[in-house]
């Protein structure tokens, strides 16, 4: 029986073997001919947009280096790109205010596993993927950018000629998704006339931490966060509500990646931001209605338990709060230059607030520490000098207020650390705004023009 089956199989296979068709070609074209045809078609697709393309790049929240991944915020970046000739591309980016002038770099289309679009010399697109955190300002750590890409595979399943006005891309390293959308002449002209710069820099003109958006008589608090998300807070039925979404900025305005539905009103973008230095106000439009954004000295609704929560989180867990840049004052990051401190025992690493660092265990009265951390012998160390606030600080009135107990070492008077300490002991105290699960901004309560951004390194 078995043998019979085998014989039948042999005959069938022999028959099939003789039925060989010209199966190496599709439509009469060899694989190489089809690849060459596809590359040419993609090339003419990209060049076939007379006013260039809007390019939206969204990350997955995961960044790779050396096969090791890190998690962080998922972001969306908006570019305007125009493929000028077979290798040159002009670009604008919303990643930084300095990227609102056109920059030329090169690109090419190449066959990899799939046909790929490679931005092959440095451009605005490469800055967020630069592994140097001093350049990318990435929260993912050294060796990682924001999880963006500059080498993309064309990921549409249709042939390029059928792709219409959009082209989908998929990043080869970090799997960021890219979406090219044909731009209109108006969009192109807006980019070249500097509209992007107005929109990216408008909010920076407001020196107060708290920013109020008023549309049609309704006021919202808007807060751009360091991880490229925006938090919108509003009051509905006496209750404070807030939503956080990533956002990107085009020549038209600030666009929320996910529209925010706030009390029956859908906010999807804030358009045409214009800063008026005279009235210290931004005028804009939201959903076609005129809107204004102004600074405010107090939060919409103060999170009165935040000061206690902030202090206890570090104290009760034996953690500390860290800041990369120290104080931001009147629109200037690291206003006192703590990152450039040289006489504190080693190169500056972070400014830290450490609850109950001092105590009987080290022969001191109980005290917190507001202390620069430096790198000494390849390890983190306390600076040679710092101030010791009373522990715990006061949490009265929904604010945190610090009082000095003493100092360790000799703080150079008038130096960056001394100035930082004086601000900490401002009698007005600080609001604490929770910006993430383990991050807070501490905002000077009197003017809201000074703040420090804390994160937990643990």
């Amino acid at each position, binding site marked *: 029986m078995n043998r019979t089956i*085998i014989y039948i199989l*042999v005959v069938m*296979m*022999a028959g*099939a*073997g*003789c039925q*060989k*068709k*010209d199966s*190496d070609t599709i439509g009469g074209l*060899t694989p*190489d*001919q089809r*690849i*060459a045809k596809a*590359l040419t078609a993609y090339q003419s697709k990209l060049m076939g947009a007379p006013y260039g393309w809007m390019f939206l790049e969204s990350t997955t929240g995961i*960044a*790779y*280096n*050396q*096969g*090791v991944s890190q998690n962080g915020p998922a972001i969306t970046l908006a570019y305007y790109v125009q493929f000028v*000739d*077979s*290798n*040159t591309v002009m670009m604008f980016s919303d990643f930084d205010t300095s990227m609102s002038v056109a920059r030329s*770099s*090169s690109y*090419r289309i*190449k*066959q*990899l596993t799939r046909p*790929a679009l*490679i*931005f*092959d*010399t*440095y451009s605005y697109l*490469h800055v967020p*993927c*630069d*592994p*140097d955190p001093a*350049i990318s300002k990435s929260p993912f750590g*050294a*060796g*990682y*950018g924001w999880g963006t890409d*500059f*080498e993309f595979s064309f990921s549409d399943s249709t042939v390029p000629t059928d792709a219409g006005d959009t082209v989908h891309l998929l990043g*080869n*390293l970090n799997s960021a998704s890219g979406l090219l959308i044909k731009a209109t002449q108006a969009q192109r002209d807006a980019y070249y006339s500097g509209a992007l710069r107005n929109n990216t820099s408008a909010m920076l003109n407001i020196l107060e931490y708290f920013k109020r958006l008023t549309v049609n008589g309704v006021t919202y608090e808007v807060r751009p966060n360091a991880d490229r998300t925006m938090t919108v807070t509003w009051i509905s039925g006496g209750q404070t509500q807030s939503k956080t979404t990533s956002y990107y900025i085009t020549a038209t305005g600030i666009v929320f990646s996910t529209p925010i539905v706030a009390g029956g009103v859908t906010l999807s973008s804030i358009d045409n931001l214009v800063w008026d230095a005279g009235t210290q106000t931004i005028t804009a439009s939201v959903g076609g209605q005129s809107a204004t954004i102004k600074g405010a000295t107090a939060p919409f609704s103060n999170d009165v338990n935040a000061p206690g929560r902030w202090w206890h989180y570090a104290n009760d867990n034996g953690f500390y709060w860290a800041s990369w840049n120290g104080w931001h004052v009147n629109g200037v990051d690291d206003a006192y230059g703590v990152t450039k401190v040289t006489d504190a025992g080693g190169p500056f690493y972070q400014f830290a607030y450490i609850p109950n660092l001092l105590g009987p265990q080290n022969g001191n009265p109980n005290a917190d520490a507001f202390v620069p951390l430096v790198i000494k*012998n*390849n390890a983190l160390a306390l600076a040679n000098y710092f101030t010791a606030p009373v522990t715990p600080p006061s949490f009265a009135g929904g604010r945190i207020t610090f009082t000095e107990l003493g100092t360790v070492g000799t703080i150079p008077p008038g130096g960056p650390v001394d100035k930082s300490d004086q601000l900490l002991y401002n009698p007005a105290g600080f609001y604490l705004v929770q910006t993430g699960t383990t991050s807070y901004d501490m905002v000077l309560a009197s003017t809201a023009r000074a703040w420090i951004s804390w994160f937990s390194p643990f």
Partner: protein
Amino acid sequence: MRLISKILPSRILIVPCIGILAGMTSCKKDNFAPLTTPPVGLGGDDWKQDSIDVFIHDSLTVPYNVAVYYKWEPGMLDFPSDITPPDAAKVIPVLKALLNVAYAPYNIQTGSNVFLRRYLPKALELAGSAEYLPNGAIFLGQAEGGTAMLLYQVNYYSRKKADSNAFKQMMHTMHHEFGHILNQNVLYPVSFKTISTGYTGNWYNISDADARQLGFITAYAQAAPDEDFVEMVSSMLSGGPNGPSGGYDEYEALLSQTGGPSSPGYQTIKQKEAVIVDYFKRVWNIDFYALRATCRTAFVNYLQ
């Protein structure tokens, strides 16, 4: 043997079956038309040549037979790593600096470009950023089997005096990698490997100053004898990192961190120096001290 004789019959049946199958499947062949288009990407990528490509052709490819890869080439650098390509505006300045400060001294010492034309790796690959390793160290350059040399951090290049540290680091990297190419062609005396003990993969936990006390010119020299050899070469030709000034300092200044001429660290490094000078004379017929003097003059003259 018994086992084989038991199995044999069924095997004998199967073997002819396979033979028949193979014969039949090949019984009809199509006549393929000859390929009219070459495989895509054969001979490398093509792009519109600009002034950078012309410069590379005239200044490196023709005189030195070197190809320069500056545009991002997927898979050419370590994959999957987060590395960025060079800024096009930095490519010509970096190559000019290499030609003037790293290559010209060899030409002056050997009398022509024949030496470099023969031994320079035929591929020079440029990257804009460094390559970050999981242990916190970064790659500044790599040499691959005498055939390719990879230079990272092109985007950081500046020839201004104030930025001379970054420039020195780049030259240090170049001399380091070219040192590898030379010792990959003709190995240094084996006795060099026994001058020091204590080579370790954990070199990045050791500061450069501590390494000098142990008889290594830099911490990286402690990684392996090969690295020790080329770090000595590059530190003598272009200075080394984290010297007494805190930045890149000349070789003699680095030696001051060993603990002085009578210290074991100083004497170990001097022993290595002697081997290197001898190696360059015997193997390459180059007066190393003269080469060093030429390198220093070239560097100082090139700073702005």
